[in-house]
């Protein structure tokens, strides 16, 4: 997956265990609070990132694999915040989706929440590593939803 450099980048890697999801939420709270988002938007972003981390752990768990770590990458632009959550698990996809096709599990409440809370959401497979990345975008200046 090609990732263009943003104006600033913040990266965090957490152990893939439930007790560390709160750490990712705290970090994203710090990042989003420095941007021109409303309080509600910052809270939306925090919840979406928590859900993406939880989804990553559930995905690896359902595949019978340990979730070694979850990588969260924030690309900070003046007009938007792009957040990528990568589960660092090599799980074969039965039917690989075409590039950029959203395939986040909408049956799960977590997936539903992410799609409602963020402006753009897609699930990608990193061509370099084969790992799944949930990519979420929140635009600045859209106001409280």
């Amino acid at each position, binding site marked *: 997956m090609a990732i263009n450099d943003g104006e600033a980048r913040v990266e965090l890697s957490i152990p893939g265990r*439930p*007790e560390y*999801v*709160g750490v990712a*939420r705290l970090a994203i709270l710090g990042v989003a609070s420095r941007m021109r988002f409303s309080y*509600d938007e910052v*809270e939306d972003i*925090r*919840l979406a990132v*928590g*859900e993406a981390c*939880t989804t990553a*752990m559930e995905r690896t768990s359902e595949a019978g694999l340990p979730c070694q770590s979850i990588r969260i990458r924030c690309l900070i632009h003046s007009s938007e915040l792009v957040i990528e959550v990568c589960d660092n698990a090599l799980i074969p996809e039965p039917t690989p989706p075409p590039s950029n096709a959203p395939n986040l599990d909408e049956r*799960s*409440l*977590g997936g*539903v*929440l992410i799609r*409602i*809370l963020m402006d753009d959401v897609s699930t990608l497979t990193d061509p370099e590593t084969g790992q799944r990345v949930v990519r979420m975008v929140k635009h600045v200046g859209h106001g409280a939803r």
Partner: protein
Amino acid sequence: MQFTVEARNVRDGVAVIALGGEVDVYTSPRLKQEMVDLLNKGTTRLIIDLSAVDYLDSTGLGVLIGGLKRAREREGDLRLICNNLRILRIFEITGLTKIFDIHSSEAEALGGLG
């Protein structure tokens, strides 16, 4: 804020579980266990007080849905107390306000619970 869970019986078969802090993938198993323990002891009408909860994720929602299902299977009920607009919004955007009976106070939640 640290997660807290405190259960107390208000009358025969009726209990209030007061939660505080963050209800998420890490903490919600404790809520689930508390509800299961109460239901197994015959307390089938549960009121979950979310007044002091400042974060609730899909895992927490799932545990509450499971508690409601288990309570109704035992001909009981599960009601919520919630005044936090942020938390209420999560119930609204997921459509769960149609499933849960949400009240603004314990007295209101206890009304007509039997």
